[in-house]
């Protein structure tokens, strides 16, 4: 079965932020929440590269490991989702996530930070696919509509890719060969590298095929 992955090709990314606003547009993400963001390394000097970063939908996701209420689950496509009805806003997933994906509506309030929100790979949440309730809490569910995340679909330079990890790996290899060098398949090993440890978690562990 296909394993969903994101791959950002740093040789292509020009930090145009299309992925960011596409995400805002698709899910009506409010101000201050950043399911997806662009990080620039070596800003302004030779070697400058930008990476579009969101939830990487890891194999063995650290967020799920630390969640005290066990609100995460992973679909058969490998998409890591969470149940906002269970989330208590403790913030542990942010400490655990290597990529800074989890977001909270309140960051400094005493006590709760509100329900965690993060990239869903455009796959909604535990409510019925494409129901109004699902949209309200998690945004749209493009995967169920037979589409892919809008950030990748709208990427200006085709730097950000989303979809079946095997296909993406293929595409990326083609590009690397064509260029004569490889770089920038960023986060791949961090997010998907632990597949062989077999530390399946949660009831949805099937389908974490790894890379």
């Amino acid at each position, binding site marked *: 079965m296909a394993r969903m992955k994101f791959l950002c090709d740093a*040789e*292509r990314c*020009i*930090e*145009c*932020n*299309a*992925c*960011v*606003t*596409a995400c*805002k*547009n*698709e*899910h*009506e*993400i*409010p*101000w*201050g929440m950043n399911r997806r963001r662009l990080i620039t390394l070596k*800003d*302004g*000097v*030779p070697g*400058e*590269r*930008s990476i579009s970063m969101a939830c990487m939908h890891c194999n063995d996701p650290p967020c799920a490991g630390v969640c005290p209420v066990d609100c995460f689950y992973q679909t058969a496509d490998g998409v890591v989702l969470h149940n*906002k009805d269970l989330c208590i806003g403790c913030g542990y997933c942010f400490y655990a996530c290597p990529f800074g994906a989890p977001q909270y*509506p309140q960051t400094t309030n005493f006590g709760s930070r*509100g*329900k965690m*929100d993060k990239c869903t790979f455009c796959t909604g949440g535990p409510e019925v696919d*494409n*129901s*109004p309730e*699902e*949209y*309200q*809490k*998690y*945004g*749209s569910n493009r995967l169920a509509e037979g589409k892919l995340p*809008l950030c990748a*679909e*709208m*990427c*200006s*330079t*085709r730097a950000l890719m989303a979809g079946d990890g095997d296909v993406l790996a293929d595409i990326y290899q083609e*590009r690397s060969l*064509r*260029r*004569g060098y490889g770089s920038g398949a960023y986060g791949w090993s961090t997010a998907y590298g632990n597949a062989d440890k077999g530390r399946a978690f949660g009831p949805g562990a099937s389908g974490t095929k790894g890379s």
Partner: protein
Amino acid sequence: MLVKRSTGKPARGSLARSLASGLAAGLGATVDRRGFLKSSGLAAGGMAALSALPATMIRKAEAGPMVPNVEVVTRKNVCTHCSVGCTVIAEVQNGVWTGQEPGWESPISQGAHCAKGASVRELTKGERRLKYPLKLVDGQWQRISWDQAVEEIGNQLLDIRKQSGPDAVFWLGSAKFTNEASYLFRKLAAFWGTNNVDHQARICHSTTVAGVANTWGYGAMTNSYNDIQNAKALLFIGGNPAEAHPVSMPHALRGKERNRAPYIVIDPRFTRTAAHATEYVRIRPGTDIPMTWGILWHIFENGWEDKEFIRQRVYGMDEVRAEVKKWDPATVERVTGVPGEQVKRVAELISKNRPSTVIWCMGITQKTTGTANVRALSILQLALGNIGVAGGGANIYRGHCNVQGATDLGLDVSTLPSYYGLAEGAWKHFCRAWDVDYDWMKARFTSKELMEAKGIPTTRWFDAVTYKPEDIEQPSPLKAMFVMGHGGNTVTRMPEMLKGLEKLSLLVVADPHPTTFASFKQRRNGTYLLPACTSFETDGSRTCSNRSLQWGEKVVEPIFESKDDYTIMYLMAKKFGFADEMFKHISVENTRPVPEDILREINRSCISTGYTGQSPERLKMHMKQQADFDKITMRASDGPCKGDYYGLPWPSWGHPELRHPGCGILYDTSKHVMDGGGVFRARFGVERNGVSLLADGSYSQGSEIQDGYPEFTMAMLKKLGWDKDLTPEEARVIQAIGGDKPDEVSWQTDLSMGIIRVAMKHGCVPHGNAKARCVAWNLPDPVPVHREPIYSPRPELVKEYPAIPDRRDFRLPQLARSLQSKIAESDLRQRFPFILTSGRLVEYEGGGEETRSNPWLAELQQTMFAEINPKDAERLGIRNGAMVWVYGPENDAKAKVMAQVTERIGVGTVFMPFHFSGYWQGESLRGNYPPGTDPIVLGEAANSVTTYGYDPVTFMQETKVTLCRVEPA
């Protein structure tokens, strides 16, 4: 938390909540598009009732993709934020734009967007849009009705016309108009009786148009974004497409990857485009000609030029050689600061990897030597034989979505549509096309002289308000300005602009947003704001930078009380009393002229640029059949558009029925003229000082004249014996136009387009086959020469490379050499030790009012900043993120901005983005906007500290090189 777009609660959602501060205040219009629809049922009267509702009462909308049984209508339009022309697929339910999908079939964008394109849906939610007409009374905004607005504005304008003449009104149009609106606005100004009509092209690429048109005939990008994939080397100079035209970048990056093409960026700033470069050249701002001549020096020195191409198709290269000789590597290094080795490497890379393309933007054009810069680069491409070939070309990225079209359609002080100029013949041509009497038209103007004189350009409208009347070559200074779709922070010298603004007796701004003009409290009366809708709320065509026309469908009805540009222009024309004449052949539904009819009128009249083949039917078919077009050549291989280039990139000669495919690449002799082939335009006569200007043994594929030839006229047809190919009807029209001199009817003025048809039948290009000009004798600098900027950071070079002498043009005086030498001799350089340059951010567009009002974009750039090199910052004790004052050398100008300390900018240089406004010398102007319409993000305008300096050919303002001082705030 997320708020569903379909089941609504939008007012409680991201936006309304977020914007509550602004909205709750005044208009009470905490209503979004959906809320508006439901309660008012699209009726205007609903507003009053809504105003009474508290924010939390806004109810759910019924529409949305998640609601079953609600039909989803898909509409196709084009992104309004830059000239690339990305297809926008809108999903509409119950008249509300609820979803945006990628348009993968678009041959240009292939589904891609940048931050702006991916957020255009917000424009029709319109939280911060102007909602109804407003009038400024004693510093307070008052809501008025459309009827009252048109009545009052019309009366005041007519009064001004009566007292001060038609030239006292300045008509400022927009590069965001559709082609149809651009043409209509030009026509409106003509019927009003003035040439004082301009738009953004003046301030972005007017020098490009002047420069390349004077070189090879037409003022446009020669190839296409897609064609860059064929380039074997890419040279970006004075452009940052990664931020300004992101969706052009996949083409460039694919070229780089597939062809292993060297990717060279020449820029004072290490831009995001440069981040992907294989060779980055940092030059001193304002030294583009020395750099270009430095490259050409090596090319000539090593014999890398394309000698055969130059012999056949280029005029005057020897004079260029003489100028280039002066620019040996040592001199180039002394002036530009670029090491000689690097210049040589660049020359070698673009010479040995041909075809190579040169890509430029406003870093080249917005200079006192803008036109000369453009010409130097054009000459470089001619020397390398890179023009008219796939993978080569001068790929000039225009700015706004329709700046190419608006320029082509004459929204300009110096010409009628289609570059016919302002001479009597041009007026007569359009009077015939518009079916109005020439004498009647002449009577609309103060005099025939003013009818044929260039108007006042937008870069200096305020000078025409504040200067002494005797300095302005028209009966009266400007008294009123009618602005449609144009920001107020786009021109330099804003402190003086404010004085002009204050002195105007009437200011009308028709725009989706109030714009910077509305934010200054200098005006307390006599300002009207008319809510115009965006291009997503109307239909019409727009021309991308690569000359392709794309038809945009109306996505939703104009929101709130806004009206589209056509309607506003019609209402004004009606008030002025010439609507019947103006819309004689354009049907008007209610008060809305039908854009298809306007395009058909364009098709009939704009012959010289080949805007004739692009009928509404063909354009709509192209949008529908996008999938049939090749993604690199842009040519349809199948389907009803088979053979056409996507969007019929102009010129598409002759009647639509001829099915000319458009020209994917201009001046391409390897193709038949009916196949998109072409040659350089014979625009400047047939010979000069005894030397032929016609091409020498070069001609487009299949031409029956296998040599250069002049432009086609009836006389030439007769001489060739081809006049018998004309149909009787065509002959009759030509006879009617020519009167007693039918031989003088040229291909441009022949409304039957028979001459064009016959010429092409014989494989000839109607505009003749000439050489490109290296020497443009009609320009101030026939061969481009380096001239230091007015505010030169190198006073010691000013004597050697002085600015042009002071002069007059465009009805105004222009200071240059006197000012420059005064500055060079003063101690200004010591007091203002930094070079100031400006540029673009990917999140914002133009003056930025629209994009800074869009929360999805505004969140990404919340602060106006100035980039400063770490070395300078350390010396001045400025840390990253601290506030600094940037002082300009004129009018005690200053701006308080955040310091961004970065290596991106060179030592001694300061960079500021130009999209901000709403602050003035440290003061927020937020309270001056009509309540609820203030953009989310405000900041100091870069142009509040920019200075005097104009290109002599177009009066393009100098935004890229001036001086400044930075101090910690």
